[in-house]
């Protein structure tokens, strides 16, 4: 041991120094190298991203892009530290919910004058709204989005005799409740399962489908002021979930603690007839479904009133760091990644939807198989999540809304108590951010 330790120490140190010296970003030829921080994680999506970066690098001599792999799991902490330390990547892939704090913190560049008109017109106004704040500044290109859908056991659904909903004529929430009852066999099967590991996002986003929005905006002399509201329309879906779990027993209480993946084994085993899930979960369903298992993708239910056929989404975005010395070049790369054919490639890789109108017409994205077509038809009902642009949302969600919704869905507290907590305690937090 006496001899081994110093030898090993010397070897490791030498290797380390060699490895550390091996890197190097300097370039004397005047070529600009931009860091592209990507959160793509599915194999196909990573491959699509890397292929596009390689193609860009092949065709652009003056501006090269380096692909830097990030992770959804810790994106906020990593970016915040990079921003604070002045080492942020030039091009940042994130989602719109993260942009609010970063934008108001002065970390992101305003892209409104840096993007080509073609891209501005290809992406719908509603999507741009999710990244436009702070007096009309655009802090990111919303290029991908993911609706929530219902994935259903096809045989059980057909056998129940229920009307099969289409994107043009989805179930109303009332119908959904009735169908769930028909599909439920006490002790054997639940009509649906609400996977509520993250209860706030779902509750807020689905409130749009009943004419609610949870967050109100008011223009004042000091700018836009947000407040929490939890009236009848805002809480209709939450009350329905509570009813299904605690009164009708058409959804299991055990599902409340689950993430989407956790519900799939029960879904395949026929324990749950339907599962509301994010659109990308289709890939897991397709991979994991046992042979012969038939499944179908249905649109989320809607409210009874006119215009109540919407749901909130948080688009994925591409932004430029304020500290980047090559903002126009970075914006050019974003425009390149957001070209219709590229946007479609990236969407297919992640099993989600592009925001661009042209990319949404891609034949592969419109195929019937695996529910793609249902998703595309749903696209026009997607609106920016009401939570976007609300300063203090993250704290409200973590400290107030998550425990309050968990208690409510679990049947431990009343609707009045939930409402009091969300509104009264919640507004104290929001007000602190808006002084």
């Amino acid at each position, binding site marked *: 041991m006496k001899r081994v330790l110093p030898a090993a120490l010397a070897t490791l140190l030498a290797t*380390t120094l060699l490895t550390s010296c091996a890197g190097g970003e300097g370039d004397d030829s005047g070529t600009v190298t931009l860091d592209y921080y990507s959160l793509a994680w599915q194999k196909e999506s990573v491959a699509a991203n890397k292929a596009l970066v390689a193609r860009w690098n092949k065709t652009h001599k003056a501006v090269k892009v380096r692909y830097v792999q990030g992770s959804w799991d810790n994106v906020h902490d990593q970016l915040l530290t990079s921003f604070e330390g002045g080492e942020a990547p030039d091009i940042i892939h994130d989602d719109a919910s993260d942009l609010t704090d970063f934008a108001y913190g002065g970390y992101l560049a305003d892209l409104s004058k840096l993007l080509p008109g073609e891209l501005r017109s290809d992406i719908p106004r509603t999507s741009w709204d999710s990244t436009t704040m702070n007096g009309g500044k655009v802090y990111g290109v919303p290029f991908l989005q993911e609706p929530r859908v219902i994935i259903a056991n096809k045989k059980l659904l057909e056998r129940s005799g229920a009307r099969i909903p289409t994107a043009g004529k989805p179930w109303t929430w009332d119908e959904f409740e009735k169908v769930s009852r028909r599909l439920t066999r006490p002790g054997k099967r639940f009509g649906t399962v609400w996977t509520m590991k993250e209860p706030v996002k779902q509750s807020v986003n689905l409130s749009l489908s009943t004419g609610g929005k949870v967050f109100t905006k008011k223009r004042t002399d000091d700018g836009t002021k947000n407040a929490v509201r939890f009236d009848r329309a805002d809480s209709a879906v939450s009350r329905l979930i509570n009813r299904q779990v605690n009164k009708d027993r058409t959804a299991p209480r055990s599902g409340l603690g689950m993430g989407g993946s956790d519900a799939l084994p029960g879904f395949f085993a026929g324990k749950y007839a339907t599962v509301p899930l994010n659109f990308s979960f289709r890939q897991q369903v397709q991979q994991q479904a046992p042979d012969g298992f038939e499944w179908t993708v249905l649109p989320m239910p809607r409210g009874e009133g006119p215009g109540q056929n919407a749901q909130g989404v948080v688009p994925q975005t591409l932004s430029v760091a304020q500290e980047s010395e090559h903002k126009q070049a970075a914006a050019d790369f974003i425009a390149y990644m957001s070209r219709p054919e590229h946007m479609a490639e990236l969407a297919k890789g992640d099993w989600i939807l592009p925001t661009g109108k042209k990319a949404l017409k891609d034949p592969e994205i419109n195929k019937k198989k695996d529910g793609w077509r249902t998703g595309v038809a749903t696209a026009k009902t997607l609106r920016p999540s009401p939570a976007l642009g609300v300063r203090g949302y993250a704290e409200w969600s973590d400290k107030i809304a998550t425990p309050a919704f968990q208690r409510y869905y679990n049947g431990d507290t009343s609707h009045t108590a939930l409402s009091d907590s969300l509104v009264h305690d919640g507004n104290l937090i929001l007000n602190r951010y808006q002084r």
Partner: protein
Amino acid sequence: MSALPPRIHLARGTGRAAQYLALLCYLVFLAFPLLWLISTSFKSPQELGRIDPTWIPQHPSLDNFREAFEAQPLARSALNSLIVAGSATLISVAIAVPAAYILVRYRSKVSSAATGWVLVSQMFPFVLVIIPLFLLLKNVHLINSLSGLIIVYVVWNLPFSLWMLQGYVKAVPVSLEEAAAMDGASRFRTLRSVVLPLLTPGLVATLMFSFVTAWNEFFFALVLLKSPENQTMSVILTRFLGAEGVADLGPLAAASVLATIPSLLFFALLQRRLAGGMLAGAVKG
């Protein structure tokens, strides 16, 4: 022994059997996550989606391992982890041994204050120090370099190593060192030839602790290493996670199994030296 009545024999046998049973239960409890991870890594996506999971994969395959290697630079990241964890471990122990010796053998107000300060330094959470640390390393151009991360790990591991080794140094009888001094050994020679061999179990325990801590560390590595070619295993593992906790479970399990192998090997190689008792009979009285 044979003179004991049969009833006492039986009672002792039963007691021993109960001890072994309790030990077995504890071992199963400890091993369960690793065994489950190994089982998961050999399962197909369809088997992972079953409601009645099986211990033994029905159709074991290496597909998850192949996919994990294809999707992420596992070999490179494992090498980075090995370099960082190995270097940090050796350096921190190399510093901690003489430091612990001095703090124990040369008692003064300064050494007491130093020991207290070392303990206080352990109370700062990662989140509190990360941004100042980031700026500090940036100023000396050590962001995105393995050397920078090694320095951080050395500093982070040192207090605990120091505290751990102090206990072991205290257990070495001073009379042995006095005997060495009588024979004309210098302080350094005494430390090297007398104290160090007797510290082997403590040294091994400290090495293991430091290595595993550095090998598993995630947050510093995440924030300080930017380039994919520099990233360590713990950071690479999160690449198998998507938004809202969705995971590519099979490849994640396969990569995690691979990530545990070096630590297991390290333990296997060093655990024999953990056995104490080297001091037995060293001095009389």
